């Protein structure tokens, strides 16, 4: 193995068994490209990558290792590859780059950069550090417990980031954006058809921009928040659970106000939805609503 790493690549193509373990060395990343199926990666405490595959013809699976990457990919002999189920165990330090078409991706416990792109699949990640980029066209994107520069993107489904910190960019076209329990100094969230909600500290010097065209926007504002807030809407409404010191009204339905000394910058825009400021834990707080929804769902 060491000799192979030093001299080039070690090709194990095609594999003859559905359960393979390769040694992993720091500096390597994990590349997974599965055309269709389910890919699950979870962290374990070994410096090795174990791949358990099922579902597809084993000839369609190719695993290789080089000095820079452990690669797992499916390929079809005549047409697209079959659906495959991949259960991968990997060290928490390994960076992951995953792609697919009809592929659901689930990653847990990795403490390294993660990149996932799929077309018709859901993305569900717990963990990730440094650079985290998750994209799906037709599936939802869900990220929890991440730390770093976060970019989450869907086209036709919801995007959710929870209990994460860093800089966050979240986009979808036809879906909601839910940012809960995030500790970010920079947030940029926008959708065309969908609600946006944000709960988390508004950090001094931070920049928070939430924008939707057809949808409501809810910002949970903790006590003691210091921010200059700009609210803009064309035909929507503005509601607040607490008094806001309005300072001037802009043309159209737009205005500014300052909370505390105004050290952060908050921009809230909804073309034709309601923009709402709520206190943490209030009935309108999306985090509380979600907890109640999840609890009801669990009881069912």
């Amino acid at each position, binding site marked *: 193995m060491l000799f192979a790493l030093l001299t080039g690549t070690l090709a194990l193509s095609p594999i003859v068994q559905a359960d393979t373990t390769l040694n992993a060395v720091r500096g390597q990343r994990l590349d997974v490209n599965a055309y269709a199926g389910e890919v699950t990666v979870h962290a374990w405490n070994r410096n090795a990558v174990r791949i358990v595959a099922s579902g597809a013809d084993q000839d369609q699976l190719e695993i290789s290792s080089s000095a*820079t990457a452990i690669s797992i990919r499916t390929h079809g002999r005549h047409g697209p590859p079959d659906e495959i189920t991949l259960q991968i165990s990997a060290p928490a330090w390994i960076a992951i780059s995953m792609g697919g078409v009809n592929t659901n991706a689930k990653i847990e416990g990795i403490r390294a*950069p993660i*990149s996932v792109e799929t077309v018709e699949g859901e993305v569900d990640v717990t963990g990730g550090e440094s650079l985290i980029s998750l994209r799906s*066209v*037709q599936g939802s994107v869900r990220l929890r417990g991440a730390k770093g520069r976060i970019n989450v993107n869907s086209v036709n489904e919801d995007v959710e980031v929870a209990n994460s910190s860093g800089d966050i960019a979240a986009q979808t076209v036809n879906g909601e954006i839910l940012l809960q329990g995030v500790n970010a100094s920079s947030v940029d969230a*926008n959708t*065309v058809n969908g609600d946006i909600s944000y709960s988390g500290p508004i950090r001094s010097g931070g920049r928070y921009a939430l924008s939707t065209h057809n949808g409501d926007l809810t910002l949970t504002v903790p006590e003691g928040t210091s921010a200059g807030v700009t609210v*803009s809407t064309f035909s929507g409404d503005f509601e607040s659970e607490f008094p806001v010191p309005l300072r001037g009204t802009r043309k159209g339905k737009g205005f500014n106000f300052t909370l505390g000394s105004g050290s952060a910058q908050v921009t809230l*825009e909804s*073309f034709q939805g309601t923009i709402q400021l709520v206190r943490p834990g209030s009935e309108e707080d999306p985090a509380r609503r979600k907890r109640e929804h999840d609890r009801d769902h669990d009881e069912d």
Partner: protein
Amino acid sequence: MTQDPWTNRLSEYLDGELPEWERHALESHLESCAECSLVVSDLRRVVRRARTLKNPPPVTDLWPGIAARIGAGIPKAQDVVDLDAQRRVRRRWAFSLPQLAAAGIALMTVSGGAVWFMSGAARQSVVSAPVPSSPPEGTPAVSVAMKPNASQSYAAAVADLERVLADGRGKLDTTTVRIIEQNLAAIDRAIAEAQRALDADSANLYLNTHLAETMRRKLDLLRQAAALVPVS
């Protein structure tokens, strides 16, 4: 399909827009990542090549038609600003899509690199100059003549990407095509609504920004969709 997380930051790196700590981190990454180094190298070649390309004049001079409609008449020579001269002074990677595409193809760079670069140029032209619904009264000829430039760039970018999508339609899953079309239609409706609102309140900063941002979203989605088309 899979992508190194740094790949999306290479544009900012080449533009000199990364914060110092990220620039150092990326440069450190480049030392160990052959793929990213290759992309950076290729993109630098694209930039060099694109800088040598000429901006072709329009096939048809649209001004007489515009002037007739707004009653501005034919501008006098002293009223006309040499846009090429201005561009030469101000231009900062402000290439048209066809130029970039041509440069990209000619140099056979990696596909992601060309798409990346096109998006950067498109973003500059669209966001910086939202399309006005109509020229304000008394606007000098030069101002009216410059604003359609951004509009034309945007239209060209959209048309190019729509052509890529149309050509590759048969290679995409029908459900994916349907979803993309539905979402493009949703964005088009939002653009139309923002445009109508702007017609009634052309000085509204929010509406101008919102329209530009929504137009950029359409470009982003088209670009994303075009990238899904398998290269045969």
